């Protein structure tokens, strides 16, 4: 069973003459335990797709399934709990709450749920992102790369069904970016997580097992473990 499925997914913003179709009947399966990338030109609908997949935005029509759950039928409350317990997020920026330490930021999803952390898992996640000695620092005391590593740890702490990453390297220098992509890669390979990443960075997509291309709100094509050159060529073609 795929971890995540989009079935006939459409999203139209506005109505009447000003209506904009962002997604137009998208069908994609994302297999569990793999590192996926979604790519496409600006305006191809990749951000909208991710918002719909993550339950942040409601599609106009179509269905999103995370394992058994049909996100489009859930109430806002249930959807919120679904995100809290089974979905992880890493963003381009504004990832962390400035008043909390790194440790507290990592544990935030559990704190919101009122759940005690699993110490072993916490240690493992923290060790894997290399933050063991920075846990008591505030975000303002960390570099951009370190902040993003905290965000990755936070996304993994609940052992989510899916981790969504929205341009996770967009704000980082290339070395920090590579580190973060390595972490996501490890999360899939070593921890068995499923990651869906939206990006326009060719080198980032090259870390992935599978790259899905969108154009004009439609599924275009997909590549399995492509090289940066293959991705560049496909992007050029779908533009």
């Amino acid at each position, binding site marked *: 069973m795929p971890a995540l499925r989009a079935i006939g997914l459409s999203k139209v913003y506005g109505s009447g003459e000003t209506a904009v179709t962002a997604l137009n009947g998208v069908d994609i399966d994302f297999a569990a335990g793999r590192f996926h990338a979604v790519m496409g030109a600006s305006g191809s609908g990749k951000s909208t797709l991710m918002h719909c997949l993550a339950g*942040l935005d409601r599609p106009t029509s179509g269905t999103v399934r995370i394992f058994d759950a049909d996100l489009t039928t859930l109430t806002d409350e249930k959807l*919120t709990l679904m995100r*809290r317990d089974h979905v992880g*997020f890493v963003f381009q920026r504004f990832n962390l709450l*400035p008043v909390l330490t790194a440790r507290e930021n990592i544990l935030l999803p559990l*704190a919101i749920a009122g759940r005690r952390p699993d110490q072993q898992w916490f240690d493992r996640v923290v060790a894997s992102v290399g933050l063991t000695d920075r846990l008591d620092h505030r975000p303002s005391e960390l570099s951009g790369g370190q902040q993003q590593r905290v965000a990755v740890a936070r996304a993994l702490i609940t052992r989510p069904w899916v981790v969504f990453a929205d341009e996770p390297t967009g704000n980082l220098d290339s070395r920090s970016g590579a580190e973060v992509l390595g972490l996501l890669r490890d999360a899939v390979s070593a921890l068995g997580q499923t990651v869906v990443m939206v990006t326009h960075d060719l080198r980032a997509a090259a870390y992935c097992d599978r790259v899905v291309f969108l154009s004009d709100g439609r599924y275009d094509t997909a590549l399995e473990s492509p090289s940066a050159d293959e991705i560049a060529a496909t992007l050029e073609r779908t533009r």
Partner: protein
Amino acid sequence: MTGLIGLTLRTTRANLTRSLLSSLAVVLGVAFVCGSLMFTDGLAAAMTGRAVAQYHNIDVEVTAEPARDDNGLADRVRRVDGVRAAEATWSLPFVGLATAQGRKIRGTHEAVNVSPDPALQPFGASRGRMPATAGEVVLDQHTAEQDRLRVGDRLLISNFGGEPGTYTLVGLTPATKDTVGGAGALIVMTTGDIAAMAGYPANTVIVDAAGGVTDAELAGRIAAATGSEAVPHDELVRRATDAAVGDADTFRTALLGFGMLAVGMAAFVIANTFTIVLAQRTRETALLRLLGTTRRQVLRSVLLEAAVIGVGGSAIGLVVGVLLSYGLPVTLSAVGATADVSPVISVRTVLVALAVGVGVTVLSALLPARRGTRVLPVEALSDAAVQVARPAGRPRRAAGGTLTATGLAGLAGATVVHSTGLAIAGTLIIVTGFLLLSPIVVPFLLRLVHRPLAAMGGATVSLALLNAVRNPRRFATTTNALMVGVTLVGTFTLLAHSAEAPAQRRADAKMSAAFLVTSDLGVIPPALLDALAARPQLAAARPTYELFDDTSGLEVRTGGQPAGTAVVSADAGTTTGDKIKVGTRTFPVSSVTGGTKTVWLNPADIRAAFETPFLTDVQVDPAPGVPAKNARAALETALAGFPTAIAYDHDEYAKHLNAQLNRGLDVVTALLALAVIIALIGVANTLTLSVVERTRENALLRAVGLTRRRLRIMLATEAVIMALTGTLIGVAASVAIALSALGSIKTEGEGISLAVPWDRLGVLLVVAVLAALAASIVPARRAIRVPVAETLAAEQ
């Protein structure tokens, strides 16, 4: 949840500076409420203490039927078995007091008597001794201190309208006069002296019980023997305590009214703060939602934040309230309340402080919190840093418009049908309507003045104006608080000033001569006329008498018509040409005039027709050729022997008429000003938050060449605009309300016309502008300290 609570507390602490301003509003509101409670608790304690002390040493008090002319009550009480001693007591509430040199002690003095028997004295002397023989008196310490009177001094004392007697001050007592009737001295005399001065028998007898009989038993025996009401000690104390507590409660209710007003203003400020802060935290809130915080959890955490601010504000407010409760008596002593009160801090006050502080903060945060937490999780990913303000909805416009129109109609209607109730209802409706409409109307008004102001002030002013209204709702909420405060102060000032104006006219109408001699007690002794006649520097005095004539059932007043004739009111039952019997004489009626059940006679005729008419005042002019100064000196010399009589010239008299009103006005204005102060804190608050929000923007302005000075001016202008808008709308509203209120009480052509106290309104405007300028200092400093390049380069 623990994690989220921790996060909330952390966020509150991180935003401490922002929270501080809004908690300042809570602090002031709570401080006022608590200060009032602590002060009135102290007042109740003091008044109860006094009530109890008053009956110290009194076992039974006997009260005669008021109508019974009974000189022997005390003797009959003494004969009752079980009475060891009894004494008749008087309490004369309107007594004049002066030094033997003629220096008048102002106030409403009360004379009481004590028995020479120490077992019947409810209080003793702290210095000297209690009066023992005729001609000896004791005064309360406070008056003696204030008017520099010493044991051994000679004093003139007269009952109202009576001839003065000379007494020697033999001691001072810590006891005081009952303060409810206004400030004044307590004069303690011997029973013989007070009986002579009163001229009527005592209707109260106090009793000291012999051994072996209970107070209640004795009271029963006395009541049976004399047929008068006899009340035992414990019951006396209970009644007096109840009355004292009731008085303190009335006072507390009035003070708490002002307290509630302050709290209401604080609610405005808090609501606005939370609206702004939550708007700025949109992304943070969205992130929390994204990570799986439910909307209810977010709402709860915002309310928790409000509660924390509320608790902090309450705690500080309680401390400030203690200070205030010591300050209140000083302020209130100006209106005659006692200053001898030690504030009492009770558990109830602390609980009220917490309940008010936390309650008002959480309740005011509720609406903004509901709105501010309705954030979509995706907003965490969007780039918009500042939320665009929602425009006012159609229902709001409709409701606001309808209410404003209805309120205006009510205000206008009140002047036609003379209904004060309608004026009040109109006021409430129009204010509510305006509060709803303000996010539309206020920015619109500001856009109207934008062009001319921008033309005068240039780009800086233009930018300030645009910044002020860029979020109409925020701007309107800020100015609304101020508007309500100013409307209150303005309406009150206008009404009071308009009521004051007739005092000038009353002085004009009353005074036909250069000087007026009258008394605070309403009546002056007739012998004063002889004393005036003996002074060659003074022209013949024109006395004014007043009394009620039992024969005709008419009020008798002094008129200016020739001797031997009467003027009557139309309802007196006679007409021109008839004869009317007034007192012992009969007069032909010369004319009929307005008024109710009144007859006017020439002063000489009043003296002839009545044995003891009440002399209320005397008009005196200088004798021909005598300078006013000399005449005044002669007048004062003539009055030296009359403790109750006071001479005024025209200005002094008008001032005297206004004195009481003015003192009351100042106190109420001071109490209302608190509301305006809290509203001005709101202006500072909004500006501070706006500056935080526009850090990047201001850096951009600096980058393109706005000097620090200009940035400062821009922010100051923005603050002044907010302050002036609120103040001017408030003044306009108060003029409308005052016009309506004055119109509503106008009857039969008689009424009060609106007098605008330009000086006071001017002060109000200046204060608002200065406060706004002050409010802009800190935010402006913050804005100019921001490093331009870093801010622009930094991702937010």
